[in-house]
């Protein structure tokens, strides 16, 4: 998977040919997607801006103000602009699933499903209907076609601080072939600089870091508002031997690796090491009990379309902003992978994604290659 020469990344113009082609830009109202739209207009594409209305009006992202910001940028660029309403689908496919995952004792990461289904599946549908050749987004990631294998490759971006590949491991070849990440070669500072130079109104807009439908960061409250029965599911906090150390107000309030908010006094530093939703038990223990030698990863997607024929070495990232741990991947039947870490890893949380990066490519100028990823099982 290394046949692509430098500078060979597939640009939009190569894919779309000489004439002015139509492309959809997913515009969130932030600086990143605003610049994407501006860059594509500069490159003489017929850009159609689309803001996805996902979480209800109360959420911070996808709010009316953000849609208005996107609309103003689109007006300034002289491009068509539409709002796509997916609030009901988003509630069903993302928000409800998020709550159910917490109730099942896992720590969900809703941004993966949101990206896969909404930013790619649904937007690509709309692109097809609009007669557009593809979808461009403001993600920090790189996609390029390997000239030897013909396969599309997903790689980490130039700006590793902004790397969003962890959320994109579910993309398939068909999606990658119609997807463009024009910011993959830029740093955030360069993006802001270009946006300012172009006079984009969103150039200095602050970042959004939280999960968009959990504006205050209070996950438990959001889970309880969606699934009020969560409040009735209190239980015991126990240690590894099963001794009861205290009581809790519902397993959805805990995540593996958590140290604060346990509400028990102990002379040792205690962490949540395991959550047993069925028994309504939160298991705690010292840091030494937090480490795992490995994990089973299910629903694995391989970017290349198929699992490797034999075990492979990889860097495995187990949460957003985790630096990654070197490991060996053992592909098993049924889209499952057994990960064996070289050194024990702390707080491997069921419900989070494990994303595999090619070890040999860490020093690659084109960015570390994403092999695939899946979900950590408990």
């Amino acid at each position, binding site marked *: 998977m290394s046949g692509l020469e430098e500078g060979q990344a597939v640009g939009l113009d190569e894919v779309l040919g000489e004439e002015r082609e*139509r492309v959809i830009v997913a515009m969130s109202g932030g600086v990143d997607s605003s610049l994407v739209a501006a860059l594509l207009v500069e490159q003489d594409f017929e850009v*159609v801006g689309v*803001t996805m*209305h996902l979480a209800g*009006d109360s959420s911070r992202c996808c709010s*009316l103000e953000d*849609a*208005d910001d996107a*609309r103003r940028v689109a007006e300034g660029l002289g491009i*068509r602009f*539409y*709002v*796509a*309403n997916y*609030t*009901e*689908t988003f509630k069903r496919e993302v928000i409800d699933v998020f709550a159910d995952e917490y109730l099942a004792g896992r720590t969900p990461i809703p941004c993966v499903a949101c990206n896969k289904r909404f930013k790619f599946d*649904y937007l690509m*549908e*709309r692109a*097809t*209907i*609009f*007669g557009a050749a593809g979808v461009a987004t403001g993600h920090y990631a790189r996609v390029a076609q390997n000239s030897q294998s013909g396969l599309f490759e997903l790689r980490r971006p130039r700006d590793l601080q902004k790397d969003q590949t962890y959320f994109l491991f579910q993309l398939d070849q068909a999606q990658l072939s119609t997807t463009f990440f024009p910011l993959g070669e830029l740093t955030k500072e360069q993006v802001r600089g270009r946006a300012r130079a172009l006079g984009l109104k969103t150039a200095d807009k602050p970042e959004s870091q939280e999960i968009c439908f959990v504006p205050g960061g209070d996950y438990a409250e959001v889970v309880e508002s969606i699934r009020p029965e969560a409040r009735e599911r209190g239980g015991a906090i126990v240690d590894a031997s099963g001794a009861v150390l205290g009581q809790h107000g519902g397993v959805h309030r805990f995540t593996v690796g958590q140290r604060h908010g346990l509400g028990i006094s102990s002379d040792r530093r205690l962490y949540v090491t395991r959550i047993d939703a069925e028994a309504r038990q939160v298991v705690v223990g010292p840091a030494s009990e937090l480490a795992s030698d490995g994990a089973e990863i299910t629903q694995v997607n391989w970017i290349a379309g198929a699992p490797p024929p034999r075990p492979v070495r990889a860097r495995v990232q187990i949460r957003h902003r985790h630096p990654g741990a070197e490991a060996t991947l053992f592909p098993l039947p049924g889209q499952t992978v057994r990960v064996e870490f070289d050194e024990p890893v702390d707080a491997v949380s069921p419900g989070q994604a494990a994303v595999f990066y090619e070890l040999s490519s860490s020093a690659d100028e084109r960015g570390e290659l994403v092999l695939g990823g899946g979900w950590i099982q408990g």
Partner: protein
Amino acid sequence: MRIYLDHNATTPLRAEVLGAMTESLAEHYGNPSSGHAEGALALSRVEAARQEVADCIGVPPGWVYFTGGASEANNAVLMGLLAKSDGRGRLVTSCVEHPSVTEPAARLEKAGMEVVRLPVDRDGLLDPEAVFAAADGNTSLVSLIWANNETGVVQPMEEIVEGLKARGKRVHVDATQAIGKYPVDMGTLAVDYLSCSAHKLNGPKGTGCLVAREGAPLSPLIAGGPQERRMRGGTENVAGIVGFGRACSLAAKELTERMASYAALRDRLWLGLQERVGRIRRNGSSSRVLVNTLNVEFVGVPGEVLLQALDIEGVAVSAGAACHSGSISPSHVLTAMGLSPEEARSSLRISVGHGVQEAQIDDAIEIFARLVNRVRRAGVEQ
């Protein structure tokens, strides 16, 4: 070239209206309340326009109160109830009203009034007997939309009003969509109040009127100066009123020919869509409907996506009710007719009007056929 098929949302200004307004903006700058020649000139233009509007509706000019549009007129009538009845009594209305009636009705309900919202049948029609039954002795007002903005369905208002007047009830009719596309004559239709808006009949936005029969109680919506016989304070929108008057006189003169030409365009479109696009259904009565309006369900096709794709191809239509963000929720009018939310979301309103050419209708049919097929092939989820 754009194909504008959203004349129920708003209409382009007629050249004659634009001419009259341009002249008025330049020449009639006086304040109609002023006691000098400039004021007198402006006042005479406002009163001439009042005569034109009155003639169009078949009332004496003294019954016409200019407002900022039909929404304001609807608010004036409904919120006026609060001032008069002190929040007691009953308001009878329907499930297919415009928001400028449903929202004041909800406020009246909060203030303690009883509000009855009558259902419509699958065709979008009210049952006159049900209206009479609902309008009991305690009823302060019956407020109904004559021709529906989304479906174009025309209520049997002659029969309803006759029955209500025989029972001594006060009646308000929202005639915003009817005027200019359907004979509106308050000489024969004995309602107490009637609302309309200039921009639905090729006049300017921001101007409309409330027509109130002599003796029908009115309370000022905007307290202020002596304008509009103290019912609406504020210096008159002279040019807007002049444009409204011209639009009304054109509508009165051309009604018969407009009705024939709009109907021909609308029927050509419906025939063509039936021939070229599979699995479509017409929403609402096809006999008791405005000549210009077609509401069509494209089975399995989300209206929002189709509307946007049509726009890219140059065709302007309407889907449901647009929220502030521009995204779309299912129409309460269609769900009141018994359509499921999904069916309502798959429905588009197509409305023809002045300036639409036969050839544009033919082009639109082909664009519809191409895009509906494209959406269906893509298998879009709602």
